[in-house]
């Protein structure tokens, strides 16, 4: 458990987080690995986990009938994967797949939600960090939607 605590504390997502909060969270955490090509999460499945990526790269994909899946983002060292565990209906809205061997810390969403409800200071810290990630992804999506490299119309 010592090691997990250190790994979580050193991950950029939790940079600067009070050590007491990390101790609280560590019981929700486990080490996971995904071989290149394997599915990490699947659209529509219950969202019970999020991942702190430590190594490798994962692709977030959308797929539509009769179309090949489109990769809309890749995530690597220092990134987090998944926030659907945080908000109802707690279901994944995208697929994610390892495009390289991935090592990550998985945090049990239900366990963490319970701890956040019990300790609102922890909840606020977690929510602030996710809000920042959401803002960054929203910005990136906006730029993506603008299709800035396309021919001018």
């Amino acid at each position, binding site marked *: 458990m010592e090691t997990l605590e250190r790994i979580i504390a050193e991950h*950029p997502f939790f940079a600067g987080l009070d050590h007491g909060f990390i101790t609280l969270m560590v019981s929700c955490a486990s080490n996971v690995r995904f071989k290149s090509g394997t599915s990490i999460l699947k659209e529509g499945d219950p969202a019970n986990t999020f991942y702190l990526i430590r190594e490798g790269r994962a692709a977030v994909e959308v797929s539509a009938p009769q179309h*090949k899946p489109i990769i809309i*983002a890749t995530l690597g060292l220092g990134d987090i994967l998944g926030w659907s565990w945080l908000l109802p209906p707690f279901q994944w809205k995208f697929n994610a797949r390892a495009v390289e061997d991935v090592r990550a810390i998985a945090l049990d969403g239900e366990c963490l939600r319970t701890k956040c409800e019990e300790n609102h200071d922890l909840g606020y810290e977690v929510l602030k960090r996710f809000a920042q990630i959401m803002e*960054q992804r929203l910005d990136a999506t906006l730029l993506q939607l603008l*299709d*800035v*490299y396309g021919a001018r119309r």
Partner: protein
Amino acid sequence: MISTSSITEPMVPERYVFRGFTKETPDTFTLTLEPENEASGTLFQPGQFSMLWVFGVGELPISISGQPWQRDRLVYTVRSVGQATHALVSQKVGGDVGVRGPFGTGWPIEAARERDVIVVAGGIGLAPLRPVIYHVLRNRKQYGRLVVLYGARSPRDLLYRKELSSWAREPDTQVLVTVDYGGIGWRGHVGVVTTLFKYARLQPSRSITMVCGPEIMMRFVTRDLETYGFKREEIYLSMERNMKCAVGFCGHCQYGPYFICRDGPVFPYENIRPLLEKYEL
């Protein structure tokens, strides 16, 4: 630095010979021109542009994308999107092209000595920055780290793919490439170019950053660079407008108080920041 005023007859094109092209993407080509008179070649400053005459069709401002120390040839990367660009890339080998220039300001390669050079490019914006990369790699000991962050629409839209791989193998050089949309076979990064910053081991206090791409991309990039702690005065942008005379007479490329052809195309971000958000410009 070579400036517009050093050209004795700026409005008179020199005759160059079209020596061939490389197809970079389905609509983008890299052309090589050589002076018809071998003694009349020209050096240029990374970031400068030429006016290329396609005789009988029209004239185009195109950034020079080749090696700045090569006097005997000029290299341009052109996206074929209109009549004149299409005519340019459809030239027969041995055909004539008129060249005026080089014109405009270059990238701050002197100010960047001893510092990390951060190159942020989007789409065909890598073309005006390629001479900077050539220059830094040729004068490697005079510069700190070279970081190239390059974004394109999709894998098929990436320029200079072989060179990107070879630059990445150079010492003290980090090359990160991303695409906005990746097909299932693409194994690299997917996401807009700003998403690369977090992987780039940036040291803002010892860096000079040079940015070129669509204007809206540069707005997002500069905003994020500031968030990362880069100082405005150490960020440079290359701007693009409809340039005609290239020497600041005609006013076609007026941009607020500046003429892009004469005062740019490379500007310190600090100077043009207030203009970037004015949609009328």
